[in-house]
């Protein structure tokens, strides 16, 4: 009887979350897609632009700034992957050399507690050609040192990537460290007794065992890059020119600066598609893993 009494309560408790999901996520996504096909500009206009249905998307794909954004997305994903690589290497070393593990981890991870805006401001300051690191290097005697990366189209993205790697490395280190620690101690001992070289042990045993962790990191990183906005704004303001735009920057710019809701919505929808494309492998893999676990349990 008691159980029946509570049939309603849990369902009632879920209503707020369901309303939010339905309105703020599912509904809003649909709304955004809908707007992208309407005549909306600065203010919403719910008449669908039947005469030129794909108008915003055609514009989008012909917009060199969108192309730049997509190129930067790919470039940044590859560049920021350094954060995963460094994170893994540092995790291995920290895990091996137990001395000072806590201190190192605390230091490596603190940038994550700093906002992208602050991180961007600090790095912009360090990239300052007259007063920053470049000047410091020249005074040290490196006459040709050039650290004024943010001022040049070709190097601005590298500057942003350095800041992103600095900001996120500790995060991947923490994930990798958790992964390494989840490996049974006795396997390390078995390898010690077998006299297996560290290189062989890591490449043939540890890295394959952590492949799921690596994949998770890669996907989280890509999703983070798609959303990158603050740090670009703080470091380069999208420049020089429009050379460091990202999809997220593009959307905000289209909405807030150019004041075109329809256009911003079409780009936002593309962001969603990109997110899903990155995300799908993770979902499939999670499903596959749970299935495998179930099989093992039988």
């Amino acid at each position, binding site marked *: 009887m008691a159980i029946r009494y509570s049939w309603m309560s849990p369902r009632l408790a879920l209503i707020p979350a369901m309303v939010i999901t339905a309105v703020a996520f599912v509904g809003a996504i649909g709304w*955004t897609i809908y707007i992208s096909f309407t005549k909306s500009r600065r203010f919403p206009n719910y008449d669908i632009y039947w005469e030129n249905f794909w108008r915003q998307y055609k514009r989008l794909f012909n917009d060199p700034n969108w192309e730049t954004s997509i190129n930067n997305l790919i470039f940044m994903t590859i560049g920021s992957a350094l954060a995963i690589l460094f994170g893994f290497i540092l995790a291995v070393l920290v895990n091996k050399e137990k001395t000072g593990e806590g201190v190192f981890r605390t230091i490596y991870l603190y940038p994550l507690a700093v906002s992208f805006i602050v991180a961007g401001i*600090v790095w912009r300051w*360090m990239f300052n050609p007259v007063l920053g690191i470049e000047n410091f290097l020249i005074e040290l005697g490196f006459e040709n040192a050039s650290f004024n990366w943010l001022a040049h189209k070709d190097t601005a993205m590298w500057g942003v990537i350095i800041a992103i790697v600095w900001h996120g490395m500790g995060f991947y280190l923490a994930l990798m460290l958790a992964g390494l620690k989840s490996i049974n101690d006795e396997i390390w001992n078995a390898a010690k007794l077998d006299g297996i070289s560290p290189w062989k042990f890591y490449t043939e045993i540890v890295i394959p065992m952590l492949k799921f962790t690596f994949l998770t990191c890669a996907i989280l990183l890509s999703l983070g890059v798609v959303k990158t906005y603050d740090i670009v704004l703080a470091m380069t303001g999208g420049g020089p020119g429009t050379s460091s735009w990202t999809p997220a920057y593009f959307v905000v710019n289209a909405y807030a600066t150019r004041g075109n809701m329809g256009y911003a919505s079409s780009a936002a929808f593309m962001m969603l598609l990109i997110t899903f494309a990155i995300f799908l492998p993770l979902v499939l893999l999670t499903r596959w893993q749970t299935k495998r676990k179930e099989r093992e349990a039988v």
Partner: protein
Amino acid sequence: MANIDISEREFKQYPKKKKKIKGSSIITFIFLAMIALAVLVPLYVIIVTSFKTLDQITLGRIFDLPTTWTFEGWNKAWSEVCSGMTCNGVKAGFFTSIKILIPSIAISVGLASITGYALALWKIKWAGSFLFVLFICAFVPFQVIMIPLVLITAKLGIYGTFWAVAIVHGVLSMPFLTLIFRNFYKDIPPELINAALMDSGSFWRIFGEIVLPMSGNIIIVVLILVITGVWNDFLIGLTFGGFGAQPMTVILANTVITGTGAVRYNVDMAAALLTALPPLIVYFALGKFFVQGISAGAIKG
């Protein structure tokens, strides 16, 4: 051959073995220390610059310590710098951020813990599907739903107030935090809940008397995520705060990035440091939970 308890055994000092410290171990340590220093460089730079006089800064030498330590930059940053037309320093943003933070915490923790509890411990047939939807929602970029949310808050008449910012934070973090709570509650032994069900079938009483008292750790983890997340957010504050409710990051960005007039680097750095300080304090005080939060966040699904 008496059985003395190990802990009561007398401690005898044995000569320390000449521990062969391996060369590779020293190299590793030095390498790790160097990376740690490199990671600390930006923090060092921001701190020393904020205490320098403007005269010293214009000499270059970014890594030098201040010749004279001055709080001038800090004072100006706190109460004088201009954001747009108003020149009240980042102070105004600080209080706005706090005003945003408190309802955000209440909304997101309250909503997520109850939703997570209902989904984890109560037999609801469609819980799995709903979780899957939440899982996807947790990854939807904010820009994708930004415009409709602006329209909704404008309709509700709260656009441009700190309430709008707080509510949007609560809404946006709900899926992710729910998953964290749900994953935590899922590990509560079902026997415990079954026993509670026999004693009192009430959903709310079990939550209040059994589940909530067990949630101390996870609530701290979530609090850290929410506090750092809300405090460090820029775009939501910018979009929903209008002119009336600009959080600290927005004021900072207005001052430093789009600010006009002579650039005062010491003031800029002090303003940035002031903005970064609250989450940094939380991080250094509760780092252990911070790491837990990261693991909890990543190993979901």
